[in-house]
């Protein structure tokens, strides 16, 4: 492509050339506000009593210990990728995951 290095132009900007296919170049998909895509409250249950010192590590989620030997992390999670990041952190310390529950909107 012309311009790979000298200003690299984005691959599909085609304002001048829209008549090429007769299609509009603007096919915006989606947007925010879909189910599960915004910030919402989550409860994550894990096995074992996780030390409360982890709270900072899990970006301010609060930790509650249940008598059945499980821990629940609760708090607002910004979006899906933040949620996956959180689950990955849990994975990386080897905590067995029991359930993930998001509030209904």
């Amino acid at each position, binding site marked *: 492509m*012309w311009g790979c290095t*000298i200003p690299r132009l984005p691959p*599909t900007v085609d*304002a001048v050339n829209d*008549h090429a296919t007769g299609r509009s170049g603007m096919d915006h998909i989606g947007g925010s506000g879909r189910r599960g895509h915004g910030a919402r409250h989550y409860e994550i249950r894990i096995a*074992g009593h996780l030390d409360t010192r982890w709270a*900072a590590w899990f970006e301010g989620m609060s930790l509650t*210990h249940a008598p059945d030997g499980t821990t629940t992390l609760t708090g607002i999670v910004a979006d899906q990728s933040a949620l996956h990041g959180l689950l990955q952190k849990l994975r990386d310390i080897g905590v067995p995951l029991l359930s993930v529950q998001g509030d209904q909107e």
Partner: protein
Amino acid sequence: MARTLVETKLYAPHPRHVLVERTRLADRLNDAERARLVLVSAPTGFGKSTLLAAWAERRAAAGDAIAWVSLEPSDDDPTAFWTYVAAAIQRAVPAARAAATLLEDVEPPPVATVLAVLVNDLARVDADVTLVLDDFHVIQSSEVADQLAVLLERLPPRVRVAIATRADPAFPIGRLRAKGELVEVRAADLRFTTDETAAYLNEVMSLGLDAPDVTALEERTEGWIAALQLAALSMAGRDDPSAFIASFTGDDRFVVDYLIEEVLERQPDDVRAFLLETSILDRLTGDLCDALTGRSDGRNMLEALDRSNLFVVALDARREWYRYHHLFAELLRSRLNDERPSRGEGLHRRAAAWLEAHAERDAAIRHALAGRDWNRAADLLERAIPDLRRGRQELTLRRLLGALPPELMRTRPVLTIGYVGSLMSNGEIDDIDGLLADAERWLEADAPRSEMVVADEAELARLPSAIAMYRAAQSRIRGDDAASVEHAHRAHELAGPDDHLGRGGAAGFLALAAWTRGDLDEAHAHWTEAMASIERAGHLVDAIAIVRALAEIRAAQGRLRDARRTYERGLEAATTGRAVPLRGTADLHTGLAELALEANDLDGAAEHLRRSAELDDLGLGLPQNAARRRVVAALVRAAEGDPAAALNVLEEAEGVYLGEYFPIVRPIPALRARLWLLAGRPADAEDWAAACGLSVDTPVGYLREYELVTLARVLVARSARVGDAAPMRDAAMLLERVVTAADAGGRRRTAMECLVLLSIAGDQLGEKPRSLAALHRALDLAAPEGYVRPFVGEGEPMTALLKAAIAHGIRVPLARRLLAAAETPPKQPLPEPLSGRELEVLGLLATELSGPEIAERLVVGLSTVRSHTKRIYAKLDVNGRRAAVRRADELGLLPNATRR
């Protein structure tokens, strides 16, 4: 580009402490003879790496070549990932170096090519090869996962891949499993059984525990090896391990929370502090640790940790570099974060400083960002920009620059412009205006230069020209060519004599604007200059894109020979002396296919298109080629007399159409209307004409020419259909106007087509002399260049006119040739003719090259060569290579050079 590899990532670890011989797992892996994939999938701390390391050691002892990659988050990018894989394979098998060499290129080829070459590399290795990918869970990109799936699919028989991961990979493993080519080891297999727990605690750690204690520990930890190790460390030297076990098993706390506390409490203060402070490092060496701790015992400390099995893993044979076991590091980091929340930043900053001083750029950037040492991060990034862009890590660059605070950019014009570049290449053009203005302020006479921050002084000199260039690009994107030209002129003036990229880029924008206006000679001159500058700058792939521009301009000027020479020279430059052709080579074949079609060489066109498609599969086409070669294929189908098939191919082309930076002189809807006419669907074509917004009075401009001529064709067809001369007269008038404009602009290809149509129209209108005069002019334009298709493509009416021309003594030899071409059906030497690619393979079969060598020559996999060969044998009705060559020779199918 000679990327600096982190060698420790390629080191196959040799576990110093063999904990427990795990024969049941070893046997599983040893049974894996037929396995292509060994998948070890389990949470952290289950001994995945240890298991694979022990297995790899045994295989190495048995003569296997072991290629080991310890993956890191920065490898979650196709180029980075395959660079390490290729390097690991090259270190394991020095002869298999083609892929690694390719990746060192200034402009590395696309991953698909690297993969094909890697498979060829591996196919030639005379040994069993095991590729181990440790910590594969850091790879989140589906692109890399898909590519690895392709590698597994094509893996030569003596090669296997082993993956250790905390999460199953994102490619389907069901097929491998069904074929018995997958060996899986999962958490349930890895966890210590009661016997293994006992063996570990009592034999390895000599704790002398009784059976109930062992069982209690095994149950509490559920055989989680990391937890058992921590427990054993907590108990070592205790008088009463049973009491420890009782309190541990009677506690609900998360296993390792409890144990890490015990372990750390038992360490002397200096060891404990060392562990916490150095936990932020991905890789540790004595000197670096000292930089963080402010002490001088780093090396001794690491050796002591290694000896006492405190979760360090040696990363090289000299035991200079270590890393903490991942789980242990996570536990330490969270503790550091909790106990001394303010400490982390300072540690990251010191790490960044040390790493920068030791030329570990990427790690230094990571730590500088983590330590919010924005100035250092900005300096490092500013200097890394040219390198990251060359390595096509635009996304990484965008992500890293986006992590900096925006206000920091304002005093750093060079960094700002780098950011503009990364935004633009990712299609984000909204914020660019403000950023350009920010950078521009520093160029003004009264700018407070003392407040300006620049890390890359060389780039500062380029700044004025670069800003103008981005403005030119932005104007072009907005469709404001006049402004684009103005900015490009300024960029050109401002670029220094050695700023080849700047000069080349500016010339390119001038060329684009001239081309869009239809000033073909001027556009050609600018492109020529752009190409020279860009080649001087070493950007050969961009130069290929320009070859296409130059050739298309010549073709529009009716200079078929020049156009062909341009492509052929480009092809030579793109292939000569290279193991793999440059990216963009596919596009050149597409161009040659179209030119072959102009000369009515349908076989040649089909052959170039086949080659183009093959190169595209290897990623050796520019993004636009996928659609472009299908457009040309549609033209070939139409020329073969199958307009319905042509319409299908055109639809495919539209499906993969990606936009275009070059002016679009042949819009797809207009081309489709022409195919409808050929397919006998004039009503559809008229619908297009009604909707296209053009009329016979529309002013003629270069970008409208193709559509206007299409409109004329629709009118001609309508006239014949309804038996009314009026539309034909309209068409003739329109065509006359287009010819005048095309003549004035030197666009002889358009003029030729219009004259051909005028001659047909004149004939139908009963204006014989005008008709023959137009044909005469068209033949004059075609004669020196060898155009055939513009005449032959018009079918019956043109055949009659050519006969008339011969009768009137007009351009007789040429007219005769064209007539002959129109009347010759294509030839069929075999019942089922060999494809162009098969002929190429056949030519190589006639040489002394081996199968793998042929595969390498053709840049395809060995299996592809085998399937070609099989089909060739079937078509020639022979059983072997020798017989095939003999038969092919008899049939005259071999190229002269290889014919015996």
